[in-house]
């Protein structure tokens, strides 16, 4: 099972029936994500990147094609907790402390209290929130709340992280700091990551591969490998190879025939 890809999508499509007719949100998506690989999905609104992530997470069901997570159907993978997920909104439960929020997935899996306490301490350390575990979400800044959400997504030690624009609502400085932390966390945990974003620099900085998508109907147009043979640190953001990749992704985004939809 360890040789199975973290995600394998073959001919995946999604159609939303509406009153005015069917909307094709996603069509004919083929994508493999290797274990430990960091893949970003980027594209304009309506390109189906979030839809694809929701299909992988089994939050919605694919209309066509097959989806496998570590060789299992998406629904099985969800029930087995093979992935952790973070959203654009932190989605913390306001009546629970930070520690209780991080432990929520473990509580759902009926992990014992002693084990939960131990795991929460590890995770709080990992995301740098050790001093805040007894606080409540409304006492934390947006960036800190998003760290809690990331810690929570890691609680069950998943080998796959699904992230839907987790830094989308944060200011640029917080965002860059959390990006650097995420690459470190992904490397430390060895988890594969599927990361939805609409920020080109973010996608380039974080990913091993950037998957460029376009709308109407949502599909994959290009896949750009960005393997930098160096650690991802702040110096990378100012290197020429980084700028070259940013330009390459930008041209891939704008060069597709469907970009006009993005410019309206």
């Amino acid at each position: 099972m360890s040789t199975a890809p973290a995600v394998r999508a073959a001919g995946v499509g999604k159609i939303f029936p509406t009153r005015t007719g069917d909307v094709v949100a996603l069509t004919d998506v083929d994508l493999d994500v290797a274990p430990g690989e960091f893949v970003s999905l980027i594209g304009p609104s309506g390109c189906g990147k979030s839809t694809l992530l929701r299909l992988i997470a089994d939050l919605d069901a694919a209309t066509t094609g097959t989806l496998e997570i570590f060789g299992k159907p998406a629904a099985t993978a969800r029930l087995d907790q093979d992935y952790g997920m973070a959203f654009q909104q932190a989605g913390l439960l306001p009546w629970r402390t930070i520690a209780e929020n991080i432990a929520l997935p473990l509580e759902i899996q009926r992990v014992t209290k002693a084990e939960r306490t131990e795991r929460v301490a590890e995770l709080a350390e990992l995301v740098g929130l050790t001093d805040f575990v007894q606080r409540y979400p409304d006492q934390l800044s947006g960036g800190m709340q998003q760290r809690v959400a990331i810690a929570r997504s890691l609680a069950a030690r998943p080998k796959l992280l699904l992230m839907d624009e987790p830094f989308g609502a944060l200011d640029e400085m917080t965002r860059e700091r959390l990006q650097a932390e995420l690459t470190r966390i992904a490397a430390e945990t060895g988890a594969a990551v599927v990361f939805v974003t609409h920020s080109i620099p973010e996608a380039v900085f974080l990913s091993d591969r950037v998957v460029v998508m376009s709308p109407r109907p949502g599909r994959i147009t290009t896949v750009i490998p960005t393997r930098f043979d160096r650690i991802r640190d702040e110096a990378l953001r100012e290197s020429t190879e980084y700028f070259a990749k940013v330009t390459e992704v930008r041209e891939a985004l704008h060069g597709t025939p469907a970009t006009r939809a993005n410019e309206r």
Partner: protein
Amino acid sequence: MSTARVDRRLPAWLRVAAPAGVALIGLAVWVLIVDVADAAPRMLPSPFAILEEFFTRWSIIAPDMAITGTNALVGLVAGTVLAILLAALAASARPIDGMLAPLVAALAVIPIVALTPILNTMFGASSQFGRQAVAAIAAFVPVFVNVLRGLRQTRPVQRDLLRASAASRAQTFRFLTLPTALPYLMSGIRIAASLAVISALVAEYFGGPADGIGTAIASYAKSGRAALAWAFVLGGILIGLLFFLVTSLLERLSTRRAPV
């Protein structure tokens, strides 16, 4: 996460002192009219006479307070339980919501006083059931409306999170839906508590057994014993106050954490 906003509220001591001051002034005017000027209308005794009656007749006021208080409590609990059950049903299935919504709207506009003589006669002169039923109906509506709203306040991101965490339906209810709805339930109960007391008391004016605060007020007012009638009114106020304070406290405990 509150910003350093200018605090426009009154200082703490003034927030307590101001209403107390108004009450004292009112009381002084009352004493002035009744005791000093001796210009009181009929049936308005001195506040001292009322207090005196309240303490000397406590042995007959207390049992009637217990009767009315129990009726209100039974009605509040029954109405609340029924409201929670039906709201849960309505929240879980659209068709049931469609069936219940107009019924509850109809129930909400029925003047409770209109039903009271009928219910009292229906369940007989020796039963408290009619009064309790009136209190239950009065309590039902605000609890139902609030709980139904509360059960629909979970956010999509929270529901996705629970699903992504492989939570069962029961777990989703326990970890998300119930805690979200709880403050709404408590608000509903706080509103319903006052209504239940008022309804249980007013119901006594329309028959049923010859006990309870309302019955006593009516009979002593008719027989001209003003101070004693007022002492029973004071008893009614105390019941209402007790219900209000307890339910307000419950509400406060449940809303300590505002949503993010």
